[in-house]
């Protein structure tokens, strides 16, 4: 099997690159080691569409973030049927002496082309963010920041890339890469060998290993762990914007994050680790996150927390590593994509296409590129009258499976038709089990629908892929 481009990794970076390249007459293959796209770094993303602030104008990621933000707001969210909410953000200070820091962030943001930045005082904050604590003295208002569902963003990109002819192989880990003498690579994955002219490495935490396999051991990925705590949707209006403290050296700090599904989130921590699989949350992390969030909004209670998780940022120095590796001709790395990677992804994709073109890949547009992806129906996102029309057309939209988040049997079936093969895949696409009861009421119903749609015995159904089977045995 021979391809023009093989992309390693179906996180947001790989998915955006696949979707961008699928505009052109190319044979594309995406290889993903997990059971579904977005199951690596992307699934723990906060979902913030950053404006571009808090980056140096000398950084690559600053520019890519501003451009990615523009692409998402002006084109992609609409084209892909995504719910992007431009809620804006505040960067708050606890000490008037830090005002010059806000001025610096404002000047740097403006140098990058971020629009509408404005210093606001306590009176403005009292009028617009009444839940802020007394320690907050002033803030920088960043209106172009927003929020999106990170995994639904990835699924939309992947679906659209596949619609435009790209291929995807999941549970397919790359185990070997061999250079072909007259150019290109043989990529060994899941027991198969794929020949390709170009190899794009968007392998997240494993990007250093993939680059080394391909002959370019030019950087190292250090995971930086972040713990996040999700609150009950009842606390949705505790803040009207995403709220940041001043950034530290290694992160943007503990934030109060609005999410596009309603539940506010607090976090993340930022601690370097050596273990690329360490996704454990800790007592210390919870304490750190609560303390950080309460400094900005004191009324958070531990009992508001309905879920938590940890993610690992793939850090390769201070900036993104996006380049052709001359020591391994044909290899393009898109690595070290930590924050603001989700926002930057569409711009990274354009940049990678450009690099490929410079190195000899011909980009001839397809006669028909399917730019639009139909928006999936989600009852929780639409007014009741729209639900009524949906249910009248298809009764199964009125058959509620998940009561906390209002998800119908038909939405679960739709998710499976769009590619979900695991319980987490259903959750990320539909929100079923993502609410306050944590699947206590709906898990068995979802498993039965999955059995029907996928044709597997229940003992073969998994939470997130092989090894995470949910049911060990059936009674005789």
């Amino acid at each position, binding site marked *: 099997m021979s391809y023009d481009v093989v992309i390693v990794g179906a996180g947001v970076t790989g998915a955006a690159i696949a979707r961008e390249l699928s505009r052109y007459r190319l044979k594309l293959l995406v290889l993903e080691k997990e059971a579904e796209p977005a199951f690596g770094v992307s699934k723990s993303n906060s979902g913030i569409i950053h404006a571009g602030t808090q980056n140096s104008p000398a950084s690559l990621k600053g520019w890519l973030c501003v451009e990615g933000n523009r692409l998402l707001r002006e084109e992609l969210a609409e084209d892909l049927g995504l719910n992007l909410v431009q809620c804006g953000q505040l960067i708050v200070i606890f000490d008037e002496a830090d005002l010059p820091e806000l001025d610096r962030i404002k000047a740097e943001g403006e140098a990058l082309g971020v629009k509408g930045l404005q210093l606001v005082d306590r009176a403005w904050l009292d009028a617009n963010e009444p839940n802020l604590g007394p320690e907050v003295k002033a803030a920088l208002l960043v209106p172009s920041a927003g929020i999106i569902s990170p995994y639904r963003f990835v699924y939309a990109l992947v679906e659209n890339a596949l619609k435009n002819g790209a291929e995807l192989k999941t549970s397919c880990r790359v185990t070997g890469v061999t250079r072909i003498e007259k150019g290109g690579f043989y990529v060994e994955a899941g027991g198969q060998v794929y020949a390709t002219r170009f190899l794009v490495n968007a392998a997240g935490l494993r990007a250093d290993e993939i680059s080394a396999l391909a002959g370019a051991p030019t950087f190292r990925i250090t995971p930086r762990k972040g713990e996040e705590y999700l609150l009950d949707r*009842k606390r949705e209006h505790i803040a009207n914007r995403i709220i940041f403290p001043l950034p530290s050296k290694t992160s943007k700090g503990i934030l109060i994050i609005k999410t596009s599904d309603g539940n506010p989130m607090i976090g993340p921590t930022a601690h370097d680790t050596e273990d690329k*699989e360490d*996704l*454990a*949350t*800790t*007592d210390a*992390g*919870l304490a750190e996150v609560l303390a950080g969030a309460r400094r900005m909004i004191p009324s958070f209670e*531990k*009992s508001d*927390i*309905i*879920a*938590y*998780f940890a993610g690992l940022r793939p850090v390769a120095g201070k900036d993104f590593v996006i380049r052709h590796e001359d020591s391994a001709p044909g290899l393009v790395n898109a690595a070290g994509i930590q924050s603001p990677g989700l926002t930057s992804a569409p711009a990274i994709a354009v940049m990678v296409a450009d690099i490929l073109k410079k190195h000899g890949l011909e980009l001839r547009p397809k006669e028909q590129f399917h730019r639009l992806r139909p928006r999936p129906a989600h009852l929780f996102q639409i007014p*009741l009258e729209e*639900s*009524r029309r949906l*249910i*009248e057309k298809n*009764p*199964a939209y*009125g*058959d*509620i499976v998940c*009561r*906390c988040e*209002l998800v*119908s049997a038909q939405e679960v079936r739709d998710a499976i038709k769009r590619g979900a093969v695991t*319980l987490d895949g259903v959750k990320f696409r539909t929100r079923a089990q993502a609410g*306050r*009861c*944590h*699947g*206590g*009421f709906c*898990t*068995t119903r979802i*498993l*039965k629908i999955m059995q029907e749609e996928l044709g597997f015995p*229940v003992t073969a159904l*998994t*939470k*997130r*892929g*092989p*090894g*995470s*089977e*949910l*049911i*060990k*045995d*059936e*009674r005789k």
Partner: protein
Amino acid sequence: MRDRELVIVGGGPAGMAAALAARAAGAQDVLLLERDQHLGGILNQCIHPGFGLHHFKEELTGPEYADRFARQVAEDPGIEVSLRSFVVKLTKDREISFLRPGALEEVKARAVILATGCRERTREMIAIPGSRPAGVYPAGLAQKIVNMEGWIPGREAVIVGSGDIGLIMARRMALEGVSVKAVVEIQKTSRGLVRNVVQCLEDFGIPLYFQHRISMIHGRDRVEKVSVVKVDDEFRDIPASGFELSCDTVLISVGLIPENELLEMAGAEMDRKTNGPVAPEVNLTSLPGIFACGNAFKVYDLADSVTRDSELAGRAAARYLGLK
């Protein structure tokens, strides 16, 4: 929007008792909304005995207990049962919107009784640290998995919390051949009934660790083990008291919370600690004509007590409607 005399949300023991009592007190038009495909609620998965000792003076299983009420409800021409019906909206003026397969329905009720039951507190609510593998289940979900579906979630289990559901599931899993390694309870005593501690743990030789907590869940894809640590009277970890238990399943039984999202949506005053309504007496809410009963009002130990108090709710609604 159709007018109804009395709408009851929830067809478990509370909703059925309230419906029958309201009818006996003169209600002519009762609409009973149940989200599942049959009446009975959680009783259907409680296949153990111990029900009915007070109400019927005989010992029944959960499904038997539920069935006695379900029959009466089915035979009563003044009660309309709507199954697979999920209420999405309730206003303080008692306007109700509900979804069922094929339709969005809207009714206006002269009185409403919420009998929506309760949900389980989860691993997340007690914030057990560690990874998030498959194999961590609320104990009530595990009960449904085993008793309703005939599936066995795992082969070696540790149970967190010694409430009744945890105790009953320890026995249930043991009966299915699962090795139950321990029940871990952070308090000094069990919150469960004494008969359950004896019949479910002691009779099966299952160790019960008081004043211990799970300090970490381990395992990437599926649970592999848990770390357990002893705590002092202030729930602080006692140094060097930790040990590990290997298991593939962790069942969480750390209490129940009244399910009152509808009542909250309608604007009733809620107790943020218990998630029950703020009320001067049993079954009342701060909204006139809207009542709450059973585990939605407060979490009960016995289904028989739910029946007793929910009958009061049915009569209170009838009085509110000016009957008798």
